[in-house]
């Protein structure tokens, strides 16, 4: 790592914390809404526990860099600058949502901010990231693409094709594998040839790095290194972020495939709580300041939900709008 965690200035560190907390609170509320039966559709895939990945990686990007996100993508979307109101509105299926209610949680996107979209197909973002990389290469813009995917996605053919081509063409891409140990009920160690997923990079002659995904500063530092490499035209990196999803795959998943002890151990490593403690103990901020920050986020959440709730439904007669540009 090029940068020790302490080298970050206080404002940046507080900002990292704020972003993680925003995600945590957004997701907690989403969970609550779903449990209360106020969201329709597939139970949202929450990223509670994985906030340091989204925030650490995306904090290493410029606003005009691109990301491709996953079915577990609320954190990525928020970290790339999305508004909570438009996100909640999308989860509620409202006309004011990012996708005008067409996409929902699994297809959330904020293209204006460089988030080219979540994806409901495991591994499907990888080939699309290649195209964004090629287009940057052709336009010589020095942008970078970050493509997120889960541990289980590394077993998809698309992952492989994308890894190979990105390296062969030296594309400015950072491949971020959010390894939360499971793909739905299946422990990755049962179905992957390599227990350490950054080892996959060895088959592509590509730098492969594993980082503690519960430490936002470590994630940011590792991402920054990869981003610098990409921006300098030195090609892609595979960054494995070791993390954990505290909740089930979806709300109906009662996690019979893992123990409560395992979960407790990971809760002890909570990226948000621990970073909070660290900031306080290192004197970077105070309880009072954090309380204020927390209140602001609570207000943002409340305002977001109010916006979503008061928004109109899409017009059913326009259900086929956006199939083609001519519509």
């Amino acid at each position, binding site marked *: 790592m090029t940068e020790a965690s302490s080298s970050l200035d206080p404002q940046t560190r507080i900002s990292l914390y704020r972003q993680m907390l925003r995600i945590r609170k957004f997701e907690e509320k989403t969970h609550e809404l779903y449990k209360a039966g106020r969201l329709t559709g597939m139970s949202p895939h929450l990223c509670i526990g994985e906030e340091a990945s989204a925030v650490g990686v995306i904090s290493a990007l410029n606003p005009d860099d691109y990301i491709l996100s996953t079915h577990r993508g609320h954190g990525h979307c928020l970290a790339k600058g999305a508004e909570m109101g438009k996100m909640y509105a999308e989860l509620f299926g409202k006309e004011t949502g990012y996708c005008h209610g067409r996409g929902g949680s699994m297809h959330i996107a904020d293209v204006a901010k460089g988030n080219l979209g979540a994806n409901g197909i495991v591994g499907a973002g990888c080939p699309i990231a290649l195209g964004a990389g090629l287009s940057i290469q052709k336009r010589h813009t020095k942008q970078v693409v970050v493509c997120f995917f889960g541990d289980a996605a590394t077993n998809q053919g*698309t992952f492989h094709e994308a890894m190979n081509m990105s390296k062969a063409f030296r594309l400015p891409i950072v491949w971020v594998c959010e390894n939360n140990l499971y793909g739905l009920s299946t422990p990755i160690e049962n179905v992957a040839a390599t227990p350490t997923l950054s080892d996959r990079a060895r088959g592509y002659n590509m730098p492969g790095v594993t980082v503690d995904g519960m430490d936002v500063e470590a994630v940011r530092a590792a991402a920054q290194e990869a981003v610098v490499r990409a921006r300098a035209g030195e090609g892609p990196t595979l960054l494995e972020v070791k993390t954990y999803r505290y909740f089930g795959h979806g709300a109906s998943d009662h996690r019979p495939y893992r123990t409560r002890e395992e979960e407790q151990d990971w809760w002890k490593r909570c990226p948000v709580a621990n970073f909070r403690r660290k900031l306080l103990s290192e004197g970077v901020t105070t309880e009072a300041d954090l309380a204020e920050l927390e209140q602001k986020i609570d207000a943002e959440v409340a305002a977001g939900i109010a916006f979503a709730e008061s928004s109109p439904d899409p017009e059913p007669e326009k259900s086929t709008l956006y199939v083609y540009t001519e519509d």
Partner: protein
Amino acid sequence: MAEKTYREAIIEAMAEEMRRDERVVLIGEDVGRFGGAMGASKGLFQEFGSDRVIDTPISEAAIIGSGLGMALTGQRPIAELMFIDFSGVCMDQILNQVAKVRYMLGGQVKVPLVIRTQAGAGKGYAAQHSQSLEAWFTHVPGLKVVMPATPRDAKGLLKSAIRDDNPVMFIEHKLLYNTKGEVPEDPDFLIPLGVAEVKREGSDLTIVSHSRQVLNCLEAAGELSRQGIEAEVIDLRTLRPMDFEAVKASVEKTGRLVSVEEGYPQCGIGAEVVARVAEHCMDSLDMPPIRIASKDSPIPFARILEQETLPSPRRIVERILAARKWTRHSQDSRLAV
């Protein structure tokens, strides 16, 4: 006979066939201890163990290919594809390998493979988890395509599919898993592939459908009946080979055809049904046929949009009632009011 859910019927069919024939194995994502994303393999791992109920990586091409390779070497696999929408990532294995290998090899092999998957919308799962792609598979020679609408059919047809020596796409519907119905317990209860069933008799009009839309059609038929129109509802059950004789016999009786499906409207199952009727019994038609399908768009997320997109009993009734106005031989029509 016992009242069972569609899900239970599926599990029971697999369990019985696995007991009967040790060559039958199940392979797919989370099908083992977890019991399947839809819970449609619950208990099988516990009974048959990891040699016969195999949890895979998220590698659908590998899953289908594994099924094919096992089928070519003496097993009778069932490969579970979690959502039919994911067929995109393994389509070559289905289209160019599974469906064609027997033909390309001039009959050197049989392919006793069942690809179990589930389709359909109505749960707000949005565009990549709600499709009804049965028309695609029906298009492809070499495959058989089965879509049961009831627990009884699910059991009898799945058992037949497993015993069939040809590859079968067995497509369940995600909204049906919790529906209930009488299911025979005789382990030799089978429903032959390729045979439609008249799910409701009627004299005024023939509604042809499959999978969950059969339930909508029956509901619509109830409403029509209250309005004095007796609809016959034919459940195709198997889309390939299609039991066109059953459709023809009914249309020759009623003189009117409505096809209802949940898939996309163009080049769908309805197109095939209507085209065959037009070719083979146009003279029996007293009114132009009616096709009802999803709207011509990806499935939207928002409930209000999704409901608008899908066929519903109300839409079916409305289309049929509206059609009466343009009945051709309205003089002698039983439908004319």
